């Protein structure tokens, strides 16, 4: 039995917590960053008429692993594959593509427990798909419009209860480089119909009903276990999007209403996820509105929950929890 952890080698705090927990339990762990292949890791896989699974393994700087020993995989933000810098740009692109196809193809064909399988993450990471699946699962979502039609956008915002919406990007991640500088496109401040310009026509834009909230909840789901923490914002910036001002946040562990619990379980089942971090807005009537599904979201930032969540993930990987 070996738990394979596919992540960066240095300082990936959610993965580090899980590795530390597995180490303490004496569970064999093999940590590898796919980004090390092919430059620092040798991979060999064989299959043929006498085998139904890939056999072989990889040999790295510190240790070796046989594919057949792997019983579970924890997939947590690995690096892109790195190739020899001596290659030309075109050759490097081809070499990366081949390395990626080989590594992912062999690893993803392993019949073992995944947290989460990357293919399931991809499906759940689509915001339009996540909203639709959440609604079908019985979870309340804010009124949402995706459009590149400025007139449609203004009409949508004008139709909302407070004639107010927020803009948010559709594609992850939140940070991009613009004019050579790192910047983030997060949830915008509240917008009225007159704030919307014809520049909406340049691409798809998402507008979502502005929900006046008491607080947010980060609900982390591990197997059948739910870990919920209220996020209380104490500045104007963090009230718009808590990522805008971390210093103004405080947290409190909370319970999950039964209807939310049932909806979340349906959502997890629909996406075939064993782990997810869900973001809810809780309004002044205590109604929970799901605004974000993060199939591989951070979990360490509510201190009281970090260790219990790491233990639950370790339980999943060890096979103590389904």
């Amino acid at each position: 039995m070996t738990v394979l952890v596919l992540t960066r080698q240095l300082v990936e705090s959610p993965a580090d917590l899980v590795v530390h927990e597995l180490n303490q339990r004496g569970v064999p762990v093999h940590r590898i960053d796919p980004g090390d292949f092919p430059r620092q890791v040798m991979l060999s896989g064989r299959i043929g008429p006498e085998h139904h699974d890939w056999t072989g393994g990889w040999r790295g700087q510190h240790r070796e692993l046989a594919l057949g020993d792997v019983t579970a995989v924890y997939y947590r933000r690995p690096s892109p594959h790195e190739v020899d810098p001596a290659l030309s740009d075109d050759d490097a692109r081809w070499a990366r593509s081949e390395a990626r196809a080989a590594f992912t193809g062999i690893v993803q064909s392993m019949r073992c427990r995944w947290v989460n399988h990357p293919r399931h993450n991809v499906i759940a990471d689509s915001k339009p798909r996540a909203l639709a699946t959440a609604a079908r699962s019985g979870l309340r979502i804010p009124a949402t419009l995706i459009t590149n039609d400025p007139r449609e956008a203004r009409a949508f915002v004008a139709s909302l209860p407070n004639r107010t919406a927020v803009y948010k990007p559709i594609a992850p991640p939140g940070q991009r480089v613009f004019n050579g500088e790192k910047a983030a496109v997060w949830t915008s401040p509240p917008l009225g119909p007159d704030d919307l310009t014809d520049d909406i026509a340049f691409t798809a834009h998402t507008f979502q009903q502005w929900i006046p909230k008491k607080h947010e909840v980060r609900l982390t789901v591990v197997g059948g276990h739910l870990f919920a923490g209220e996020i209380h914002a104490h500045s104007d910036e963090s009230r718009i999007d808590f990522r805008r001002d971390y210093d103004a946040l405080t947290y409190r562990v909370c319970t999950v209403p039964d209807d939310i619990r049932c909806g979340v379980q349906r959502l997890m089942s629909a996406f075939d996820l064993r782990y997810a971090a869900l973001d809810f807005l809780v309004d002044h009537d205590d109604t929970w509105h799901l605004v974000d599904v993060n199939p591989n979201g951070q979990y360490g930032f509510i201190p009281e929950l970090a260790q219990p969540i790491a233990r639950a993930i370790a339980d999943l990987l060890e096979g103590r929890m389904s």
Partner: protein
Amino acid sequence: MSTALTPARVEGDGPHQRPFGLRTARPITPENTMSVPQTTYCPEQQLALTDDGVPLVTAAATGTTYATDAGATRRDMQWFDDAVSDSDVDAPEEEE
């Protein structure tokens, strides 16, 4: 670490017409960008260790101890809130 940024710099000197959503882009300022502490990788524990030989996940300065600390939150959320794919080895290479 980048130099001081302003919204004007993010908008840049290029064409004035841009997608509406990019008008809401906010610079990642030095004040809210954290640097990763000095660590070494321990092959046996398969963890990053601090200079004192303590696994970073249990070191007092990290965001994974039990004490609530705003800076710790920021570290946990931002160290790797970057362009690396969160979810996918199936995504196109350009997305990573």
